[in-house]
């Protein structure tokens, strides 16, 4: 088991290396010459060349890549072109809203998707199943910002049940914090729920045909026990896998959701960075999001042995 964990952790290194290489290339081929910008308008070509040398911009691509990776491993993601603040500090400021949104969305989505997926599999072929699957295909088709506007229009503008926009830090109370995140979490969760519900249904249908389910039924175990204990446990590996893969949807969706609901998180920061062409910040954000995504999927991989004791490494 420990050997497996170590092997899996090591396997993420080449993946992150490819991500890092891509992200570094992004800055390398980005338009604009940093040396010329620093030198200013009055500089002669010789001045620009001198600054380029002092910044080390004249050295080969791979050496600069190596030094950049070395910096990152020491927690230095560079300085924002726009604000002159360290990228890490800017990201740290925006971390709480995004983490809050992600955690609430994840909890809510899994809490809704798994039961309705189980229900669809149990009632397969009936109108209940059809309604749930129809909802799933709508969830895939209606873009996150459309759902976001629809929810905000109905529940915030018309009914005035919830705030339209904004974010309140957790430190200022749990309800104000939660209240602001309900609509964004539902909007962001829709496509994720669709994905998980579909996979849950498929995995459950597979398991419900197994012999041990018939045995459990013959022993007189109730429907609930069969569905949620015997079947769901055995269907959990594909479900957990898709929960992990779907985090990519959450990250992409957060960029949009935070813009619609004016939440000052990392997604909003990403949009600002793109619009200002703040390349060091873009690099840092892509690296961070990808790192989180890889980490989540690593944890998913490691959870297989806990979920299914038959899986041994």
């Amino acid at each position, binding site marked *: 088991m420990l050997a497996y964990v170590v092997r899996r952790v090591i396997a993420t290194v080449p993946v992150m290396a490819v991500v890092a*290489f891509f992200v570094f290339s992004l800055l390398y081929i980005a338009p604009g010459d940093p040396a010329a910008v620093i030198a200013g308008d009055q500089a002669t070509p010789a001045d620009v060349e001198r600054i380029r040398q002092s910044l080390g911009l004249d050295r080969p691509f791979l050496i600069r890549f190596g030094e950049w990776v070395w910096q990152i491993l020491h927690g230095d993601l560079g300085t924002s072109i726009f604000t002159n603040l360290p990228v890490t500090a800017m990201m740290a400021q925006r971390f709480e809203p995004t983490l809050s949104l992600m955690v609430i969305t994840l909890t809510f989505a899994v809490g809704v998707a798994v039961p309705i997926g189980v229900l669809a599999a149990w009632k397969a072929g009936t109108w209940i199943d059809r309604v749930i699957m129809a909802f799933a295909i709508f969830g895939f088709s209606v*873009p996150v910002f459309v759902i976001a506007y629809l929810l905000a229009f109905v529940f915030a503008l018309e009914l005035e049940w919830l705030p339209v926009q904004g974010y309140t830090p957790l430190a200022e109370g749990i309800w104000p914090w939660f209240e602001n995140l309900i609509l964004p979490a539902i909007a962001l969760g829709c496509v994720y729920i669709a994905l998980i519900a579909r996979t849950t249904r*498929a995995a459950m249908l597979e398991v419900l045909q197994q012999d041990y389910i018939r045995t459990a039924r013959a022993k007189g175990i109730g429907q609930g026990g069969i569905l949620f204990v015997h079947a769901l446990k055995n269907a959990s590996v594909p479900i957990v896998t898709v929960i992990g893969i779907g985090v990519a949807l959450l990250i992409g969706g957060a960029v949009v959701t935070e*813009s619609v609901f004016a939440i000052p998180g990392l997604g909003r920061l990403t*949009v600002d960075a793109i619009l200002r062409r703040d390349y060091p910040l873009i690099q840092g954000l892509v690296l961070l*999001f990808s790192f989180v995504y890889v980490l989540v999927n690593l944890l998913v991989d490691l959870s297989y042995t806990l979920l299914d004791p038959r899986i041994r490494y």
Partner: protein
Amino acid sequence: MTSAPPGIAVAPELPELLPAVNFGRGAVGFLRRHPAVAVGGTLLLFMLLIAVFAPYLGTVDPTALATARRTRPPSAEHWFGTDMLGRDLYSRVIYGARVSLLVGFSVAAFASVIGLAIGLVAGFVRWADAVLMRVMDGLMSIPPILLAVALMALTRGSVGNVILAITIAEIPRVSRLVRSVVLSLREQPYVDAAVAAGTRTPMIILRHILPNTIAPMTVQATYICASAMIIEAILSFIGAGTPPITPSWGNIMAEGRALWQVKPFIVFFPAVFLSLTVLSVNLLGDGWRDALDPRMAKGL
């Protein structure tokens, strides 16, 4: 085909991986058995016709400014109202179908062809497999929207660049799929037989592997098309997509953003068209997948 020696030179009708699509009793029978294809196909055809015949559908120049008539609500003259610059929203939404479908179809086509090539090479060339799949794993660990957004930061916003950025973001998934199909096809007896008969590798790929990867690829292509249309709208919405002058659904919604609380119709119409178009492609994809694989129809 039954007269040929088994497994040599030509593949049997279709391998067990892909049961034959039953077109029995013609197209009508097929559509009746797969209502999702019928509904999705009709809806998509409708959108395609709108896109093609946009100039003849009572539209005016979608970029024509009329600052005297800004943000008018829907009326007999302006069916969907006008935007902040007085442009006719009906015309902009109708012309927007062109951008969305162009991006969706182009990305599906390019990502499929390039992903197919990468998948085939990875499936057949051992040393290339390791390198290519590491690169694909790396690209896949960057969430697709983020990858497309980062690429758009490098270039000026244009429809071509949007297509390029989304294509790059979608390629890893196609090549992974093709590779896995190729690896399982390589285990098929008729491929072994072709190898034993001395068929050259390019010929094996062309005659035995390629035809059998097309079907699962077409299903994948529909999903890519749907995903590309959503990503295009998101890119334009956050201001990193097509230039604002282009009448794309994402752009119209981005412009309506500031006013959505007082003039919700600006956001409403493009949102409905975008959702319906993506829905049509998804329905088509689901129905087509079920038609190709009846086992999936019962299961997934």
